[in-house]
């Protein structure tokens, strides 16, 4: 790293508002843009969920301002809740925001490898989001065929589905450009001494995530192109011959296969699950190591598990399709790979638990969220095992059990980790800390009410309540014993909403009014994002001088070092043994 950082200082004052905040090429500004936009979408998707829960708890009762929910509206909210949360909320927050902001800082890079491409990724994401939101206002409303958009239903859907596809094309383009940028940045721009096995676990997680995005998204794009052709050019890629709808036989050539969509969709969407989870694991690993003041237990093992996980995630997808009439041989293959892929996840989770052992844990707000992630993700993973085996999946599929399972992975799992990340890096971004008391209220309220929403779903699902019922199961006598949970879940959902208010207040209030950090390395962390940059970092360039890396990522409490922690850029003392040798030789 020679003289790359010199030209960075004499700008920043003269540029106007739009250049500085909207068309910025600085990875930190882009990260914050992603973060704010994604948080907005998360809130919006959350409100859709509240409306659906209102309907499920009290079917047909009018919602203030909106009136009673129609089945069409319910289906729109369901489809868009999934799409918004996955593609416009969590992925942009986990990858776009945290990845963009933190990865270059942690590897000692002045920016991403392609800053203008980075800006373009954000704008593709933003306009993809705009198209999705606009689809609520077209005739007959937004997409109603679920976030998975299964044909034939999706093929014969209303205009909202076409908007959904165009929106997805933009979001996929954004993710692909982002993935190319992350991979190039991590491979090419690591500072001197930052070898692959000295990279913080968070960077590794983003690295594997970017690989998954790069190679798994294009098949969905292919599927999206085919579905667009079906809708706009009247082809029949996903329409079998002789299909009859409520309006009579469909006038298409037929000869296509609805299962083709499911294969292409899940080829993306299973790796996508890991795209949702891996960055969360990365955030948790950083925070756990920092707050136990210990190195991560089994760092290399965790990295190898991560790589293995990434590879395996490409060959497990059809466990989403056990009830499509799949043959037994191929279903046996996918059951085996699914069982195998649970092993590396367990290894990572166990390593994080073992890291806690014997640590002097600081119960800061980010640490609370990170600790909350561990058991919640555990429940999410364990409830997934019965779904990975065909005999147990067949009765459970399409029930609330599935909803409960993956929400445990993504909501109390990933979202808690993302909150942890916000509390952890907020001081880095703003130079001010968030309020601890409000943060703790937020944590306890969130984790309790989230469990209140999702645990009863597992029970309802095992009772056989279908996940697609507009009335929450009212029409079926077998769901009667578990019907009262609907009210409990909806009250929990409302409580979850109330407990986000302290967070929102805390977030906005702390930007200007939070306590100023006393030192750049606010958490006494070893990684370069805290140890080598000012807080907040230098605009366009990050570092006052580009750091050099001398050690492993988590050298906390190193015996005999005499200091609480050794950051990665701490130069080793002139080795005494060498001196002695020299003296002896002299």
């Amino acid at each position, binding site marked *: 790293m020679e003289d790359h950082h010199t030209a*960075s200082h004499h700008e920043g004052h003269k540029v106007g508002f739009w250049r500085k905040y909207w068309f910025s090429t600085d990875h930190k500004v882009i990260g914050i843009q992603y973060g704010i936009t994604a948080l907005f979408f998360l809130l919006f998707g959350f409100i859709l969920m509240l409306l659906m829960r209102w309907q499920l708890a009290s079917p047909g009762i009018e919602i203030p301002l909106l009136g009673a929910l129609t089945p069409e509206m319910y289906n729109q909210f369901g489809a868009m809740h999934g799409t918004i949360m996955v593609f416009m909320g969590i992925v942009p927050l986990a990858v776009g925001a945290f990845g963009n902001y933190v990865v270059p800082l942690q590897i000692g890079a*002045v920016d991403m490898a392609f*800053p203008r491409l980075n800006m373009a990724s954000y704008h593709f994401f933003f306009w993809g989001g705009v198209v999705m939101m606009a689809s609520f206002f077209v005739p007959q409303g937004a997409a109603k065929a679920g976030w998975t958009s299964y044909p034939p239903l999706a093929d014969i859907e209303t205009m909202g589905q076409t908007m959904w596809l165009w929106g997805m094309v933009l979001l996929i383009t954004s993710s692909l450009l982002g993935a190319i940028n992350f991979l190039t940045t991590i491979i090419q721009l690591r500072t001197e001494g930052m070898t692959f096995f000295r990279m913080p676990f968070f960077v590794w997680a983003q690295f594997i995530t970017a690989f998954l995005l790069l190679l798994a998204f*294009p098949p969905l794009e292919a599927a999206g*192109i*085919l579905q667009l*052709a079906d809708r706009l050019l*009247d082809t029949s890629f996903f329409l079998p011959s002789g299909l009859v709808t409520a309006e009579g036989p469909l006038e298409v*050539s037929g000869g296509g296969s609805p299962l083709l969509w499911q294969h292409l969709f899940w080829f993306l969407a299973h790796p996508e699950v890991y795209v949702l989870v891996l960055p969360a694991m990365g955030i948790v690993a950083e925070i756990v190591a920092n707050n136990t003041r210990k190195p991560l237990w089994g760092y290399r093992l965790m990295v190898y598990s991560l790589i293995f996980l990434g590879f395996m995630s490409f060959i497990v997808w059809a466990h989403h399709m056990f009830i499509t009439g799949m043959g037994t041989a191929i279903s046996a293959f996918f059951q085996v790979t699914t069982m195998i892929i649970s092993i590396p996840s367990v290894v990572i989770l166990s390593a994080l638990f073992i890291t806690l052992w014997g640590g002097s844990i600081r119960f800061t707000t980010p640490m609370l969220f990170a600790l909350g992630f561990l058991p919640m993700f555990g429940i999410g993973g364990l409830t997934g095992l019965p779904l990975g085996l065909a005999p147990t999946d067949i009765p459970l599929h399409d029930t609330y059990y599935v909803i409960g399972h993956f929400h445990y992975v993504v909501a109390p799992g990933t979202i808690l980790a993302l909150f942890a990340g916000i509390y952890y890096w907020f001081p880095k971004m703003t130079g001010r800390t968030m309020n601890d008391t409000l943060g703790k209220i937020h944590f306890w309220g969130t984790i309790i009410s989230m469990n209140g929403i999702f645990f009863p779903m597992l029970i309802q699902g095992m009772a056989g309540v279908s996940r697609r019922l507009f009335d929450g199961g009212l029409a079926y006598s077998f769901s009667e014993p578990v019907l009262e949970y609907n009210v409990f879940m909806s009250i929990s959902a409302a409580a979850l909403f109330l407990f986000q208010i302290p967070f929102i207040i805390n977030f906005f209030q702390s930007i200007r009014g939070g306590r100023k950090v006393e030192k750049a390395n606010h958490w006494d962390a070893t990684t370069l994002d805290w140890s080598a940059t000012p807080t907040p970092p230098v605009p366009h360039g990050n570092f006052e001088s580009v750091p050099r890396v001398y050690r492993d990522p988590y050298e906390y409490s190193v015996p005999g070092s005499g200091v609480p922690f050794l950051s990665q850029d701490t130069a080793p003392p002139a080795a005494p043994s060498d001196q002695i040798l020299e003296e002896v030789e002299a």
Partner: protein
Amino acid sequence: MELQIPYEVTPRRDTGVNNAKLGIWLFLASEVMLFGGLFAAYIFLRMGADAWPGMETFDTHEMATRADQILSVPLATLNTVILIASSVTMVLSWASLKMNNFKGFKLHMGLTILLALGFLVVKAFEYGSKFGHHVYPETNIFLAIYFVLTGLHAIHVTGGIIVNAYFWGPGTKMWLNGNAHDKAHFTNRIEVAGLYWHFVDLVWIFLFPMIYLV
């Protein structure tokens, strides 16, 4: 005023490549998966089809048993030759820059663009003759595949033409007004544009036998 990103032009020592080179290959890897997904769809649909291509031929009105009874193999062969030739001129334009021969670059890059335009013209004739016979993507699943795959490929060709035209015209400023470092940068850019262009050629090399011949 722009921030200087390391390894924009010169390769990094341990990886041996510069950023743009790695970036374009990553992009091409994703393109491999995009077209791979479509090829997989093609295999899936064809294996599941009762008849292939499954429609009447234009002249005899019997059921076609082969794709070349519906599609024009001579035109497609011509297009294959055109695209391969454009790939050669593309690599020659890069080699000219390596030999510091700017005129050679202009010539070969110009030829590449012309050949690419020729490809699109032939393609347009092909599509036109199908439409003339009232044959559209919706006619059957074989034609759906044909139009979507070749259409997506044609979009890629168009993108390549735009990029190459930029480097043939306004993009040359970097070479003409620049120092040795800028010239090396420009040569890298042509190499990267070339990698994309060869990939478009490569996709066609698989599309051609798959759709027209087998």
